[in-house]
């Protein structure tokens, strides 16, 4: 018996999936969800073997869900039209269905998913996410998980970002969140007119900076609105001066 969850915001699309699944008695649908948030919660709780995941959904997209999933099952993506996603799917041998899809095409996807589940080889997410990151441009929100809670942080609430080994710590006005992404990712995905990398370990929102101060001979620090002091590296200094119009 294979347990499956459908995460898809359109009822008719869910109906279709269910209809096609009638041919597969051994696949049992244990839940249907209309948005990324509730889908995510259910997947982490119910730990299904297989999910049908729509890419474009309210609250969280299918890809954003992947970033914060505990339990990674076999996934069949469904999408209507998304050039970025398609490229990522093709490069990473991910099962996907292009809407509208035929019963035959559905059968193929199910066949592949079955193989993955029996062989236990379902983990494609790291490479897939990496690929999607590369194609994406400027981001407007970041999804993080703290404990069992999921937070969606709008980029305009981010004050600064600090490197923490394999993670980064994202500082907002009244909180901080750990996120498994590289500094390089944020450096290339935050709007360059709003954020600047001032140090190997720090990316700062320009409008948060109140002062640039000489700290010791040759070394500078910036002081943020709330008084936080962050070091500026030699390499970051010229660009920072340029952006601050010094």
């Amino acid at each position, binding site marked *: 018996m294979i347990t499956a969850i459908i995460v898809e*915001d*359109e*009822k*008719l*699309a869910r*109906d*279709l999936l269910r*209809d096609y699944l009638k041919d597969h008695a051994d696949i049992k649908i244990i839940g249907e969800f*209309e*948005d990324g948030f509730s889908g995510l919660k259910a997947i982490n709780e119910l730990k299904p073997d297989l999910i049908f995941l729509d890419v*474009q959904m*309210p*609250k969280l*997209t299918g890809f*954003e869900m992947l970033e914060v999933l505990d339990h990674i099952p076999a996934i069949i993506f469904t999408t*209507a*039209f*998304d050039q970025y996603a398609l490229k990522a799917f093709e490069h990473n041998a991910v099962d996907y269905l*292009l*809407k*509208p*899809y035929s019963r035959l095409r559905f059968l193929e996807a199910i066949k592949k998913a079955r193989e993955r589940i029996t062989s236990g080889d379902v983990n494609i997410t790291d490479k897939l996410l990496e690929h999607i990151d590369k194609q994406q441009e*400027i981001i*407007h*929100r970041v999804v993080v998980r703290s404990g069992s809670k999921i937070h*969606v*942080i*709008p980029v305009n609430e981010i004050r600064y970002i600090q490197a923490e080994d394999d993670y980064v710590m994202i500082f907002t006005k009244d909180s901080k969140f750990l996120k498994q992404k590289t500094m390089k990712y944020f450096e290339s995905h935050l709007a360059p007119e709003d954020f600047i990398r001032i140090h190997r370990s720090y990316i700062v929102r320009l409008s948060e900076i109140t002062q640039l101060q000489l700290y010791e001979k040759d070394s500078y620090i910036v002081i943020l609105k709330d008084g936080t002091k962050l070091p500026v590296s030699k390499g970051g200094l010229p660009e920072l001066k340029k952006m601050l119009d010094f």
Partner: protein
Amino acid sequence: MANPIFERKRSIYIYLLVWFLISGIHFLAEIIFYDLPYIVAAADSLVYNGLFALIAVIIWYPVRYNNPEGRIKFYGLVTYLVLGIIVLLFWLFMGFFILKILFSGNEEYFRFLNDSFFVRVLLGALFFIAAVLLYHLLVYYRALQEKKLSETKLNLLVRESELNALRSQMNPHFLFNSLNSISSLTVSNPEKAREMIIQLSDFLRYALKYGQHDETTFADELKNIELYLNIEKTRFEDKLVFEKKIQDICLQAKVPNMILQPLVENAIKHGVYESTTPVVITLSCQGIGEYFEIRLKNNFDPENKSRTGARLGLKNVENRLQLIYNRNDLLKINKQENYFEVIILIPQKKQ
């Protein structure tokens, strides 16, 4: 702008060659008509022409400063008159000064220098006028080239925005998701599937019917947008609620075709797609003075943090309005805590 003579090596050579030729003619004329010794004629020709060659380089700067557009105006002429006199005096004096040192004691040559004073003034004036005219021609020619270039760029921009507008009319997401809904309905509700195919066909026909600059009536636009909303409603059911408040006078108003669709699509994209609760889209239109004011309002869940920032569809509408009415103040956006509103003004043409 730098002096065009120094722009390329070739232009420096040409400049020098021209002055060399003038010097040559000058030299020959002095030998043939005035019987001057070779050495004296050569020195006289080289000093005077060489001096003017230097001065002519400098003349570029007042020309450039005086007439950036390359056209002569009255105060410009006065400037040139004064400049010409200064240049002439300087030129004659410097030439005289250098030659006097070179040939001190050569009485015969000095007599020639004195006798030829009037001819030299004429020659200097000729040189000056020629230099100014040539520089002007150059500036004018360049301005013309630049204008041509910027016109080409503008055309490209127009073409691009037209393409973008077309693309936004045919949002592939809408198209393929609708087809998927139809595919689903063929099993559960074939009658409804047929109805949706017809609606989709009518909508596509309307979208393909008109060109970028064609006008239609607001009534037609309204009919089309209701088709579009019906299709979306089949997909999203109760999540999408449509309301309208249209003054009768609006129905016959001439509006650009497919102007409403990108607005509604934007509302659906940022409202309905991103929401799990019902979103109300309200379309209103009223006549205000010489305009029809069209408002499209949608509520959104402030808890939802938008994933996308750019509103390409609205930008396209703004560009189209700019192209059609030549004004950039016809589209306004009013974003509040929990609703988003786009307001466009359509100028009424006087019949």
